[in-house]
């Protein structure tokens, strides 16, 4: 179960952020040489020039940051140009004007007040929005001008949409020529190369590999203990004339049934926990999990392999031992 949850949560975090970027544009512009969007600063005035390019349907700028909000120690803050507000589906109220914010549904549950303190400024809550991306659901959206003052920057990045997928490379080239301080990439490439994702992926790979290895060693040693505790039984069966093949075949199917049952139990429990995670208020929707089919199949194959290895090796050794010694060892 630990294997499922660690892998799923790290995949979920990456999935949420990449979805946030991928769904909103085809091209992303960030500050050159800055590997994290949180620290990137791009000149927002580029928007005017970009909008005039052929095959560009829309563009908007965003500032992403994080800050304590009221009693909440940290929450995501999204400052955006007004043309991007429609991305956040209002469940009540209005989109924010200057000095106003809208709260994600998860965050809104924790505020019964009409205003919130962010940084050293108080903002009026003008509405509540919902999003299927956990990061956004637990965050705050405001005008990019307010966010600019709060985080002292022009824009973290600019996202550009095009009506022609074949022309995207051409648009990338044109935008790159507009300012030497920017880096322009397709969102697909950005997600692939984004350092934060690599860090999350690598660290989750190490953690899940360790959890996985420990889990597998646990499975193998439990199976080995179970087989060793049944030496007497194997000795009796051999004394009654049952062949080594009969004993190993039975053990093979027993192990298969036990492993599959344990796997299914862990899978269902993990899916249940993953389904609950986004609804835990304390987590503000930031912890989300995605269990991919390939992870599930990989865990299944490894679990079965280790369980069979852990049970069949001691069974094979036991099958080569004289029956009376097995019976006596079992009694010991």
């Amino acid at each position: 179960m630990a294997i499922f949850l660690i892998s799923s949560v790290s995949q979920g975090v990456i999935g949420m952020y990449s979805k946030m970027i991928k769904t909103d544009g085809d091209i992303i512009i960030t500050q050159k040489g800055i590997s994290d969007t949180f620290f990137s600063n791009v000149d927002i005035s580029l928007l005017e020039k970009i909008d005039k390019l052929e095959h560009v349907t829309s563009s908007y700028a965003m500032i992403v940051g994080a800050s304590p909000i009221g009693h909440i120690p940290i929450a995501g803050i999204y400052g955006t140009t007004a043309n991007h507000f429609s991305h956040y589906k209002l469940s009540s109220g209005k989109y924010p004007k200057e000095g106003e914010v809208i709260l994600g549904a998860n965050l809104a549950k924790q505020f019964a007040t009409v205003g919130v303190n962010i940084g050293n400024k108080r903002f009026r809550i003008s509405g509540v929005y919902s999003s299927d991306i956990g990061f956004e659901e637990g965050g705050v959206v405001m005008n990019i001008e307010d966010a600019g003052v709060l985080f002292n920057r022009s824009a973290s990045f600019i996202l550009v949409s095009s009506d022609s997928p074949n022309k995207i490379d051409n648009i990338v080239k044109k935008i790159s020529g507009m300012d030497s301080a920017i880096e322009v990439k397709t969102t697909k490439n950005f997600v692939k190369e984004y350092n934060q994702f690599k860090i999350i992926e690598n660290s989750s790979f190490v953690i899940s590999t360790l959890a996985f290895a420990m889990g597998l060693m646990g499975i193998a040693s439990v199976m080995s203990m179970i087989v060793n505790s049944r030496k007497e039984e194997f000795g009796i069966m051999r004394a009654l004339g049952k062949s080594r093949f009969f004993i190993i075949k039975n053990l093979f199917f027993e192990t298969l049934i036990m492993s599959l049952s344990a796997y299914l139990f862990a899978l269902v429990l993990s899916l249940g926990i993953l389904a609950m995670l986004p609804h835990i208020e304390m987590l503000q929707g930031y912890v989300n999990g995605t269990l991919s089919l390939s992870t599930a199949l990989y865990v299944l194959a490894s679990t079965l392999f280790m369980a069979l290895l852990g049970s069949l090796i001691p069974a094979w050794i036991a099958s080569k031992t004289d029956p009376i010694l097995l019976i006596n060892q079992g009694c010991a």
Partner: protein
Amino acid sequence: MIKASNISHFYGAEQVLYNLSFEIKEGGFVFLSGESGSGKSTLLSILSTLLKPSSGELLIDEVSIDKIKNIDSFRQNRIGFVFQFHYLINYLSVYENIALAALEEKKQNINKILEELGILEFSSRYPNEISGGQRQRVAVARALVNEPKIIFADEPTGSLDSKNSTIVYELLREAVKNGTTVVVASHDMQIESYATQIIRLKDGQIL
């Protein structure tokens, strides 16, 4: 029927049997007697093919045990066992314990044997749901089900009272009457009255 030649056995560095040679004739009731630690259980295990001797040769029906390719099948077809602690498998019912040992063509005998031993009514019970005496009768039934040529019994009455001991001995004597060779290792001298051959052991040697 059984011919043992110069059988010796070691457990690690400790020698427990010393160059034992003897013959057991078909249809006999053989009593392996001796004090605890005399080596009778080890010898019985070797005779019953459950343990390979360190040295020496064992012939059953003039065939060397070392030359038998499928010893498991040989055991199931020719040999029955009764152990001191019955060694029934706890998660199998009485019937299933006997069926586990039975050859396919002998499974039809199970209910008949259970009836003869007076335990048919317990056939669906599990070993921990019947008494010690009943468990030992199940063990005897399991040994008899394939109508083996030889039955080996190691202290078969060791955990029974005298009434149940007599029942078990009578069952084994009945098997001898039907042509089965029975070899019993025990320190219970009551069995001497049933024996047609006695092999006395002391410190791993035949007296």
